[in-house]
């Protein structure tokens, strides 16, 4: 179908982060992070709970202002041009972002309206998104009755209706069974391969990150401690190392690392899993 698109940005970098810092009191949740994320790549962000992944994503999605440093997303400054950034990104948070008391169709309609998709195009884009995500059959059912995998796919669909250049997916497979996880990853790969979207994905499943991400950054105590392709990171540890080994090697298994996540984090994760499962 004919589409009127603005010229693609010439830059090969979709996200440029320079010295980005966010402090909560004395604690630097994100500490002078510098990263460049290439266009049309799947970028994995890994690290223990409380390491700063979510804080970093919240800053890049303009939900949280940085304490210092800067970043551009899809060519727009997150501090100076927040509404331009919002227009060009999609964000699938770790928590629920689809409304359970609306139908799938209504959720998508809400998104097209919030993102200013022209009225004439709304129906067609929603129909396309529902088919692509395998939700056409359940479009008019309340999302409260969806399975976890269906909710996740709907949430991804919600974020694609305005054709964002950069998509942030915060633990998109948390609480999903293996086949639902695979279905979600299939869509993510298709978005890169067919539509050249840039995706920043966090996950605790190292096997997923290893298999699907083009590049990985490991963040701990708010700092990037490793950055490279999955094979580069593995090769640094041992010839036969897995990404799990990389994680353990760099972060450690101490109780100190384990206890950082805290009650609030556990509560959120468990509830998200409960709601999705």
């Amino acid at each position, binding site marked *: 179908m004919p*589409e009127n698109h603005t010229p693609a940005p010439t830059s090969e970098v979709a996200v440029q982060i320079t010295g980005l810092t966010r402090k909560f009191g004395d604690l630097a949740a994100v500490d002078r992070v510098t990263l460049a994320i290439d266009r*049309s790549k799947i970028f994995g962000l890994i690290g223990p709970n409380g390491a700063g992944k979510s804080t970093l994503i919240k800053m890049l999605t303009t939900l949280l202002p940085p304490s210092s440093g800067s970043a551009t997303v899809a060519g727009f400054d997150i501090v100076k041009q927040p509404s331009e950034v919002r227009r*060009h990104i999609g*964000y699938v*948070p770790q928590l629920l*972002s689809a*409304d359970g008391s609306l139908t799938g169709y209504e959720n998508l309609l809400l998104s097209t309206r919030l993102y200013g*998709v*022209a009225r004439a195009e709304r129906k067609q884009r929603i129909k396309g998104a529902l088919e*692509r995500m395998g939700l056409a059959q359940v479009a008019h059912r309340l999302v409260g009755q969806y399975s976890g995998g269906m909710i996740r796919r709907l949430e991804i669909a919600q974020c694609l209706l305005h054709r964002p250049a950069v998509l942030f997916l915060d633990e998109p497979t948390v609480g999903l069974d293996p086949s639902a996880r695979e279905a979600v990853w299939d869509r993510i790969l298709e978005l890169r391969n067919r539509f050249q979207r840039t995706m920043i994905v966090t996950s605790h499943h190292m096997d997923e990150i290893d298999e699907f991400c083009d590049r990985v950054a490991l963040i701990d105590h708010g700092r990037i401690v490793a950055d490279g392709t999955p094979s580069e990171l593995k090769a640094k540890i041992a010839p036969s190392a897995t990404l799990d080994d990389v994680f353990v090697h760099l972060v450690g298994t101490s109780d100190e690392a384990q206890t950082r996540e805290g009650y609030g984090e556990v509560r959120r994760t468990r509830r998200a899993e409960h709601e999705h499962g």
Partner: protein
Amino acid sequence: MVKSGEPAVPSMSTAERYFGWTIGNYATQTFAVAAAEVQKLYHDPLELLTRAVQPVLWLMLFGEVMARVRGVAPGNIPYIDFLAAGILAQSALFVAIFYGISAIWERDLGVLQRYLVSPAPRTALVVGKALSAGVRALSQALIVYFLALFLGVGIDLHPQNILGAAAIIVLGSGLFSTLSLIIACIVRTRERFMGIGQVLTMPIFFASNAIYPLSLMPPWLSVVSHVNPLTYEVDALRALMLVRGTSDYGLPVDFGVLFITSIVLISIAGRMYRRMGY
């Protein structure tokens, strides 16, 4: 949705980019939030009925007894008529003042972040929430109107009066729901909000002309009631809803007070709402 031959980074059409900043889009985004609320009510209408219990009790228990006390209502209005407009405002107030809870609930779930990462102006989201509260309050108003008719209250059924009353109810609920949203942004947990909501509703309700005229109040309380927006909401509703009702301050003053207070609260809430995403 999209075919594979399209440009490398699909982006917005120039029209979308341009229209992103128009009033039309602001209205659409505001409407989107309120429309979602209407759809929710459509899916679960039972909630409206459960909320209708309270105004029924006020009118049928409190109202029937107080109607026997002479001299409460001013002029020649029967007390039950006087009370009906007050209870109409009260039921709208109760819907609105706990509206902030849903914002906290949405924040905890994650649904709120979805609104905050959208390009919709923050005030459009706040006005959308205010309209949502107005929609709920209107459904309450319908029940109170029917109940009042059943109790023999002299209801003015002229279309312009009904529309005027509807406008006042939407405006009043929008005002108090925005106040509620501001409180939600400050207290941030449901437990704390419940406490504050209870503490707020009592003085707003009793320090107003909802169930007795200001002339019965001691001077200090009368002063407090004069700065209470609910007083102006009730005043306008008495004039619009009742055949024998009159406004003490005049409808333009009532509308003006409610409108200006709403604008001030919406601009404050627009600044605070973004902090809910932290």
